[in-house]
């Protein structure tokens, strides 16, 4: 019994840790995507892609360990279908929402050239839904918020994303004409 619990503890730990790492990587990717115009273009662009792909790796680890953990019953369907988890329905559901939206963004980005710019861009807006869903998932299902540095990472991510969004809004308000180039009338 203790061996089983030991294994379960390990899975649970890895799941939470990878979840935190996922939030950090994903938040960094979002910050770079939102504030892309304010930095060195090439580096920002490539880093954004790299972080997004890292996030997918962490996501895989996070989801698999959470589901394999025998201590809680989540089930595979809950990964993609919100409200399908018997355990902590809302929290996991938010995670599933993030996976759905993020998945759409990822897939369209992989086939971007074939899809065409307009369709790709339209789907990419879902990122603005993915991040809040991921963050809300972290807040509602996170068992470690009491630990000071976990809370720091969480709220640090939120602050970073919020700052990036505000910065982007301000720059858009200041100079919309240059930004309009590259979008056919």
């Amino acid at each position, binding site marked *: 019994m203790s061996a089983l619990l030991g294994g379960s503890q390990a899975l649970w730990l890895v799941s939470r840790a990878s979840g935190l790492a996922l939030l950090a990587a994903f938040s960094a990717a979002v910050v770079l995507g939102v504030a892309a115009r304010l930095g060195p273009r090439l580096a920002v662009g490539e880093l954004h892609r790299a972080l997004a792909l890292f996030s997918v790796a962490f996501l895989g680890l996070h989801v698999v360990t959470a589901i394999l953990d025998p201590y809680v019953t989540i089930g595979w369907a809950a990964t993609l279908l919100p409200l399908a988890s018997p355990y902590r329905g809302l929290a996991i559901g938010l995670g599933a929402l993030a996976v759905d939206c993020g998945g759409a963004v990822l897939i369209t980005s992989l086939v971007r050239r074939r899809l065409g710019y307009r369709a790709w861009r339209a789907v990419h807006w879902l990122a603005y839904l993915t991040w809040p869903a991921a963050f809300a998932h972290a807040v509602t299902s996170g068992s470690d918020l009491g630990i000071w540095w976990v809370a720091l990472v969480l709220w640090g991510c939120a602050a970073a994303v919020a700052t990036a969004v505000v910065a982007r809004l301000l720059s858009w308000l200041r100079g919309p004409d240059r930004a309009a*180039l590259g979008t056919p009338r």
Partner: protein
Amino acid sequence: MVTAPARLRVDFIACAGRGLCAEALPGLITLDDWGFPIVSGQAVPPRLLADARATVRLCPKLALRLEPGR
């Protein structure tokens, strides 16, 4: 193996002058006075072909194309 000469082409309607291409491929792409890419009509030298393909992928507006044999 002989491959058809490949040329870089910019779709200026899609281009927004972000400049990633010129950073990535300074040997073949320079920027005009307003930040928009100038690509020579010359064939891409074979040693730069892989870099050229990567640069095409990089463009956030999908405005750069590699056209074979034209």
